[in-house]
């Protein structure tokens, strides 16, 4: 049994029974007389994911404690002190000389405020709220915001990708100088790839941004990332879909990654996003954007974008492992999947027991592409017999497309055509760098700790 109103928010039986019997709803200033002595404080709501056995009390010192229901003999209520949480708003200043930037929210907590009493993170999103917490944004642009979605990034999918692409296209037609997309970091690179394919010939920058440390923390990277992304959207000459996140873990600069070559590479580091098999587009800091290369699409004054917001979600990404059985592939065929991306070993291999299943897939008209689970480097299926045999079974090598990017692209391609040759043409014709002609030597740089020369480098540069 759970309380059906806010009076006992989050409490379930048996704590709920106790609080009701003692007429001690949440926000009561109370003393709990227990078998372990008396505890006085403010009764807080209980998190719904916590157990049903403890009452949460905020002491005068600001600390919270939990008191188990069966220790409580009696509760004396002295008063009530309800938290009424409000995010302060200050009007975002308008400066006619500054460029217009649109911030589209999908649900990451790029800016948020903490309810200190309950610990809940409340997103700050309106221009006024953003200005209240990151006033530096007003030095860069006139900002407008729109909340498209309110989901964790793992819940972003084709519908949201297409919706976001359409919203961006509409804003570009209205004449904004750049777009910032706030996004949770876990699947930011999937969305970046989707937007790269769905929004072609962009005239302005589309900058995706998030944070690795939530914005309620003093050490958060959120404000710096947001400022960097906004500066890029407002002023950069790079009219592409980019991811703007910390370069090093130190507070120094953000890197601008091309949306089709970027990947989240660490579960928690600030500097988690890396460009793979290539170098980033550039960097951004307080002084502005510095391109690292000049082969990017330039900003143009027109307001047109080639919108291709389509997706067929009957596509799967199979991460191959030794001893994989053919039933994995069979089940995809039986369930009506139209496309399979394999992340194969080495240069693009799977084991022999999968061959009959792959043959079945070809016969069923399933589009099968090979990528590499090594992340860096190209598929090359001529070198070994296995590769040649797989191509014989209709598996198409996808060059150096990242597995997740290939997955997104195949769904996007199948959204346009089911024709084998047309899909193949779409897949293997790069839209914006998802396949490159060459991999420069510094496109793969994972320094190995412990080596003396790396130790020397690490000790002389901020990480």
């Amino acid at each position: 049994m759970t309380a059906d109103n806010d009076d006992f928010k989050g409490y379930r039986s048996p704590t709920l029974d106790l609080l009701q019997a003692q007429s001690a709803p949440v926000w009561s200033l109370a003393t709990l007389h227990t078998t372990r002595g008396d505890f006085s404080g403010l009764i807080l709501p209980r998190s719904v994911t916590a157990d049903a056995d403890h009452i949460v009390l905020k002491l005068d010192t600001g600390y919270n404690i939990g008191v188990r229901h069966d220790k409580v003999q009696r509760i004396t209520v002295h008063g009530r002190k309800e938290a009424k949480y409000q995010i302060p708003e200050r009007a975002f200043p308008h400066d006619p000389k500054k460029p217009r930037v649109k911030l589209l929210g999908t649900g990451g907590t790029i800016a948020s405020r903490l309810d200190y009493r309950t610990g809940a993170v409340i997103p700050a999103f309106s221009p006024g709220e953003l200005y209240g917490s990151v006033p530096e944004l007003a030095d860069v642009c006139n900002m407008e915001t729109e909340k498209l979605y309110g989901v964790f990034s793992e819940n972003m999918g084709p519908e949201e990708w297409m919706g976001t692409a359409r919203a961006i296209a509409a804003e570009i037609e209205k004449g904004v100088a750049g777009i910032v997309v706030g996004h949770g970091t876990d699947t930011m690179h999937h969305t970046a790839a989707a937007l790269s394919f769905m929004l072609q010939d962009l005239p302005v920058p589309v900058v995706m941004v998030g944070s690795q440390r939530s914005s309620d923390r003093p050490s958060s990277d959120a404000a710096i990332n947001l400022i960097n992304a906004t500066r890029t959207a407002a002023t950069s000459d790079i009219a592409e879909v980019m991811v703007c996140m910390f370069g090093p873990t130190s507070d120094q600069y953000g890197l601008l990654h091309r949306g089709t070559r970027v990947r989240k590479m660490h579960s928690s580091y600030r500097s988690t996003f890396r460009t793979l098999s290539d170098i980033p587009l550039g960097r951004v800091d307080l002084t502005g954007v510095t391109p690292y290369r000049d082969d990017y699409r330039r900003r143009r004054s027109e307001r047109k974008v080639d919108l291709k917001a389509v997706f067929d979600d009957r596509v799967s990404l199979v991460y191959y492992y030794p001893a994989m059985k053919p039933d994995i592939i069979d089940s995809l065929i039986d369930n009506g999947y139209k496309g399979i991306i394999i992340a194969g070993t080495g240069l693009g291999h799977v084991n022999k027991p999968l061959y009959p299943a792959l043959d079945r897939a070809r016969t069923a008209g399933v589009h099968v592409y090979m990528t590499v689970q090594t992340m860096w480097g190209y598929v090359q299926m001529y070198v070994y017999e296995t590769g040649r045999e797989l191509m014989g079974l209709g598996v198409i090598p996808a060059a150096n497309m990242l597995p997740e990017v290939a997955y997104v692209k195949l769904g996007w391609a199948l959204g346009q055509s089911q024709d084998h040759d047309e899909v193949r043409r779409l897949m293997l014709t790069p839209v914006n760098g998802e396949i490159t002609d060459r991999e420069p030597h510094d496109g793969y740089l994972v320094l190995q700790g412990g080596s003396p020369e790396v130790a020397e480098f690490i000790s002389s540069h901020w990480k």
Partner: protein
Amino acid sequence: MSLSSQYRLTDPWLLQPLPAWGTLSDDDYAALGFRCGLEIHQQLLTARKLFCRCPAGRYNRDHHDAEILRHMRPTLSEMGEYDGTALMEFKTRKEIVYLLNRETVCTYEMDDAPPFEMDDLALDGSLLMAMLLGCNVVSEVHITRKQYLDGSIPTGFQRTAIVGTDGEVPFGNRSVRIRQISIEEDSCREVSDRGHRRVYRTDRLGMPLIETVTDPDMRTPQEAMAVGQILRFLARSGGMVRTGAGAARQDVNVSVTGGTRIEIKGVPSLREVGRLTHNEALRQRSLLGIRGELARRGVTAESITDRLVDVTPQVRGTACGFIAQAVAQGAVVGACALPGFQGLLDVSTQPRTSFLKEFSDRVRVIACLDELPNLALSTQNVPSLSSAEWERVSKACNVAADVPVIVVWGSRADIETASREIAIRARDATLGVPNETRQALDDGTNGFERILPGADRMYPDTDLPPIPLADARVDAIAARVPLRPWERLERLRALEVGADLSARLSRHRAWDLFAHLEGRLPTDGAFDAAALASLLLDRSCPRPASLSAAGPWWEHTVDALACGRVIPEAVWSGEDEPTARLDDGEARRLFEDALASLPNPLPTAADKRAHAMMGAVMPALRGRVPGSLVRRWIDETLAEVRS
């Protein structure tokens, strides 16, 4: 410069020298309304840090293999206001550099990974401490974030949790209340703080600490030291804390009547607590005196402006070395006049410290102007600008020559911050003792550290769930709670051990051994509890480092002592099998043999003669006959010789 009559000081406290430490009586402190509370931090003895698997207690004084750079950004409180401390730290615009060593820190301390679960051993240790101090133990531990924006913790907050509340410790004929016991992670060690860069070493970061907080129940500095000793001792008696340099630190909070609760951080040793709290009481009393003078003069917070006048042209070419040098390097010199503060800035607030230092401290900490001297005062009797230069400065500020003018120098941004801080400190002076955290200095005085953080800086940690404390866990720890010193005294009284011996043993590390052995003693033996106590306290007694190190030797030995088979002196040698006691006849024969071998003539002085005889007989008798018996035989022999 003589002051006009309207600026003469009227509060007698401001006119006489500050009373030195050690010269005030309990009544004097009572008259001041002295109140003091303690916060004692002790590192828990664990193998790992509190929220990650890095090794605990390993420090690399000089070595680091990487650095990271961070900044702290204030987060708004729920009322939409920046916390005062947060704003101050933001105003300092500090770059924070952390020195990393791969042996002692991981991505958790770098704030590049979420916490692991809390170390169980550390939590058990903190629960034991809570029980030792008679606290009410919580049934669910909630990890809370306490914001620190000085950079001492890379996350910007300390993870901390309450494990017990409302304990008490007997003290004389009353008791001192324990407000709470918490478990928390330790912060970084500061390496340097110069200009806009502060550097921290991270090895200590994340070490588990117990924080014990008392109510402000101590009424004199001496009481504060005594209570601190009791708390320290209690923690050690539980065996769950580290000892040695840096393993324990304390903060003290002090107030006087009309003053403010001021927290002094980083008191290195309990011995310093007395002088430090005494000096803080004086400071608060002096600041209250200054407030009175300002009120009498009609100076209010509203009447103080933060107008900064650029006086670089007025001082160009000065012979004052530190200002000339700064100007040569491009510094701007700014002046702030403080009308109404005549005669107040050189009032003593602490030994060798005047009110002006409160301004200098804020300018140093907040405006980052940390090359001392960082300001000069027109009315101060130390060499700075020439009188002609001061005259020009006063004129530029549009004030009379007797009005105190403070000049500061540095980058324009920094002196603007400095002038705002000077005005803030001056306004605070009209209100009394400003709410701030202060830092203990080596000479027993204290200096400004930061503005006291608000209660809003506490909020729940969303990275870790609450930890329920099962009854079985709490009961198991309760069974390990050792007797507190006052309970030991009761036990010793019941065993009829004398008061002096009891007082010593109850606080001695030999207590555990005593408590373990005393049950073996027969109730009617000559070797009783008092004899065991004095044996264990004797400096010659071999004492094991711990009870477990004692092994069965002590048990056998006490059994032998109890039945009279060996005497206490036999134990001193620490041999595996203490020498058995000789029967008195055999002993007397060895005694007389030894005396017969004495050289002739014996010294004439009686005491020297007794000494020589002792020297002759003891090699054969030591540890085999009670020393008191040998002494009696010698006395009898000497008496015979005399007669």
